[in-house]
Structure formats: C-alpha cells, structure tokens
C-alpha cells in the first residue's frame, strides 16, 4: 500500500527516478531544477540507488551522456530548466530522432535577458518541435506519477521516444506536498525492464545517428512524425493502466466545470489549480465559465480539444510564453489552428500572463476571463494581449 508522505516535489522526483530503478543519471544543476539532481546524487552516493551519476560540465553534455547511456540499453534520467534546456537544445533532436527513450523533468523557467531564475513556459515552448513526448503536470503527485508513466511510455516498443515532464519552476519544484509514493514492487510491475531493440553492442555492431543525405532524410522525418503521433494511443493506454493500479487517472485534456459553460479558460501546468479556484468563484456568482486543463502537449490532442470546447462561445487561452511578433502564445496558436476547420467552435482569445515567476492570482484569472469575454464581443487592436502588466 502506497504511503502518503510530505516531501518537496523535487525530492519526490528523485525518489520516483529511484523507484523506476534508473541506471544512469547525467545532469548539471540549474535553478530551479537543482534540488532534483542534488537528491539523486545523494541517493547514489548513499548507496540507496545503484546507478551511475555523471556530473557533467554542461547540459549539452548531460543530454549527450544520457543518450549514449540509453543507446547501450541503460535506463537514463536527467532534469534541467530554462537556459539549461536551451543549452541542450540541439541534442534533444538527436535523442528523439535516434528514438532513445530517456525521461527528463523540466523545471520550467523563463529565459534571459533579463536574467530570471523564476518560472514560466518560455523554455518549454522553445523545445516544442524537438520530437519529444511532452506532458505538463499540475502538482507534485502528477509529476511523480508521470515520471513513472514516462518510462513506461518511452520504453514501449511501439514508442521508443524520449519523454519530457514539465513542472513549474518554484511553484512546484520547491513546494512540500503530500504525495503518494508507490511501493517498489508496484513500480517494478508497472515498468517492465528496458530493452532497446538495436543497442550499441560490440558483438553486433550498428551505426546510430548516421549521415542522412537528401535521398533518405525526408523518409527518416516522415517515420519520426508518424511514430510520435501514434504514441498517443500508448500514452492513453499507459494512463489507463496506471489509473487501474494506482487509482489516479490522467487525460490529455481535463475539463473542469465545463458543463453549459459559454466561456472557457485554457491553462497548462500548476496555474490550472489557481484557475480552478477562480472558476469556482465565478460559478458561485452565476457566471457560465469553465476551465480546460491541457496536460498532453506533444503529441497534441486535437480530437480531445475539439470535443472539449465545441459547445463554448469563447475560449480564452492563457500562455506563459510570448511568440514575439507572432500570432499569440504558442498554446493559443495551436489551439486556434486545431479548431480552424471546425464548423462549431468558440472564438479563441489569446492572453499572455504569468511571465518570469509573476503569479496569476484568483483575482487575476477573473480579470483574464472578463477581458477575454469583452474582447470576444468588441475585438482587440492587438493579435493577443499581455495582462497583469503595468501599462
């Protein structure tokens, strides 16, 4: 029976990686991810986790070491944040293109300049197209559960793709939460042993990441795209299986008080919990509002989004990242694009807020919903609006 313990979310991630019995951790500390790898290095140093801990000189090397480990058939884990994720950027593509099933926790952090260690989704959005499966967690329990699910999904022979678990820097990483930590025996049953079909092996040599001239490159990318898209079926299957064992069910898109809602708010990550409180308050005041919580970011859950919002009149998408000079935040762009060809769809309003660690309070979410409804009626002079900013 799982025990519920009070634990910092970062430490809980380390414990989850330990429960997943990882073989290799290669990581470089960066705020606000540091406590995750600190805890893992302690577990290894204390002999509680039988793994190689590689203290590399940069995040570029962290990702490189992890993919090398994964290629020989080891289970590898790492974590990073913000600038660190950017520094490993080019290697992220290599991991997914070579189909290496790593799991990485990303403590979402804003990007310089100005220097900010605080949270938003700028780092996550910059790696949107790297070919990784990407899941956004709302709280510590979701992070732990999805690190475990992450390994099962990534290593499934039908998938073999790396998985990123996004969690908000500070808002989640530094919180002490009551978290159900599963028993080792339960996890051992849930995550089968890792078996890479074509590992690096001197007795049976293969070439990974070979040269791909124009005659073959398009074929490799088509195969990669088809594979990532098809991974959704396995993700759903895994979440279903996880729910059956552990009693906590996850869905690509969560609907909160969406019934009969004329205006819907859409959020990703931990701010969804504050948004729920705002929706509760507005519902009590008799307003027809609801909340869509987007959990699966890649592969994008097109059908689920279309179904969830089709009866609403307005959909207000809150992004915690800016696409400078573009159509709005990345989440808003994608949601709007997913709905474009639908006959029955809400008007999509893009709002950017909560940048660089600035909170979006319950009151601020109310302002966002009200302004979104107003824009849907009167229009806006801008493609999207940044709210919670001093004018």
């Amino acid at each position, binding site marked *: 029976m799982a025990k519920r313990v009070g634990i910092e979310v970062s430490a809980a991630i380390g414990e989850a990686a330990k429960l997943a019995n990882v073989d290799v951790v290669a990581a470089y500390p960066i705020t606000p991810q540091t406590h995750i790898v600190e805890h893992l290095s302690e577990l290894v140093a204390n002999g509680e986790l039988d793994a190689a801990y590689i203290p590399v000189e940069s995040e570029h090397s962290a990702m490189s070491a992890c993919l090398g480990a994964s290629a020989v058939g080891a289970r590898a884990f790492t974590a990073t944040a913000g600038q660190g994720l950017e520094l490993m950027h080019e290697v992220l593509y290599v991991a997914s293109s070579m189909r290496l099933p790593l799991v990485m926790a990303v403590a979402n952090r804003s990007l310089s300049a100005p220097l900010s260690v605080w949270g938003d989704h700028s780092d996550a959005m910059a790696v949107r197209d790297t070919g990784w499966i990407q899941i956004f967690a709302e709280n510590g329990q979701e992070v732990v559960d999805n690190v475990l699910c992450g390994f099962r999904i990534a290593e499934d022979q039908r998938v073999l793709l790396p998985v990123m678990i996004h969690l908000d820097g500070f808002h989640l990483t530094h919180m002490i939460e009551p978290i159900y930590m599963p028993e080792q025996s339960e996890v051992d049953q849930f995550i089968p042993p890792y078996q890479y079909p*074509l590992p690096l092996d001197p007795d049976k*040599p*293969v070439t*990974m990441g*070979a040269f791909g*001239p124009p*005659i073959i490159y398009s074929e*490799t990318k088509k195969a990669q795209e088809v594979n990532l898209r098809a991974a959704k079926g396995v993700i759903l299957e895994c979440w279903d299986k996880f729910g059956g064992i552990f009693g906590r069910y996850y869905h690509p898109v969560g609907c909160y008080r969406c019934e009969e809602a004329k205006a819907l708010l859409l959020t990703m990550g931990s701010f969804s919990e504050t948004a729920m409180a705002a929706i509760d308050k507005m519902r009590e005041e008799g307003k027809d509002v609801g909340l869509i919580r987007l959990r699966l970011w890649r592969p994008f859950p097109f059908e689920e989004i279309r179904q969830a919002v089709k009866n609403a009149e307005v959909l207000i998408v809150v992004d915690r990242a800016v696409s400078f000079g573009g159509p709005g935040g990345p989440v808003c762009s994608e949601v709007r694009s997913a709905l474009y060809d639908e006959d029955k769809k809400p008007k999509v309003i893009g709002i950017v807020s909560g940048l660089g660690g600035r909170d979006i309070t319950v009151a601020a979410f109310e302002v966002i919903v009200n302004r979104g409804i107003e824009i849907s009626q009167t229009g806006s002079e801008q493609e999207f609006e940044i709210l919670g900013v001093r004018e």
Partner: protein
Amino acid sequence: MVKSESELTWKDLEIGSIVVEPGSASQYQTGGWRSQRPIFDNSKCNKCGLCYIFCPDGCIGQDTEGYFKVDLFYCKGCGICASECRREAITMVEEKE
C-alpha cells in the same frame, strides 16, 4: 534482396534510422562532385607512396605492379596527391562531363 537507399520508403527504415549493415558507407559515392581528376604518369613514378599517404579520402591504392591508382568512385578531386608528388607524376585534369 536488400533495397538500395533510393528504394527505401519511410516504413522500411530501422528504428531511429539505425544502420545495421557494417561498412555500408562504402556504398556512398563521394566522387560525385569532383571537378578535376588525377592522372598518374607511371613513367615518372618511383612508387614512393606519398600520394597514398596524403590522400584524405584513402581512395588511392596500388595495382599489381605496385604503381598507384585512384578509385574515382570516392575521389573528390582535391589535388593533394598531385601537390605532394615529388616527381610531378600526377596531374589534375578537368572533368569534361
């Protein structure tokens, strides 16, 4: 029958486009963009082997008499062999087609 690269569809590729056949790079023609080719004059050659040593592509070999010759499937026409040959036995000539 193994398909050649130009026949492979995206469904034929191994996971992660892994190459399972050792040494398959030898099938890749690197001589395709050559604009000049080396011509060997065996009457000047003393079989010293400098051309063989300096060739960055490793595409110079020896014939049965020990004279050096080039494999034009790989030769990129860089001209290093001609430049290094002490006896001026190698000349670079324009590729006509």
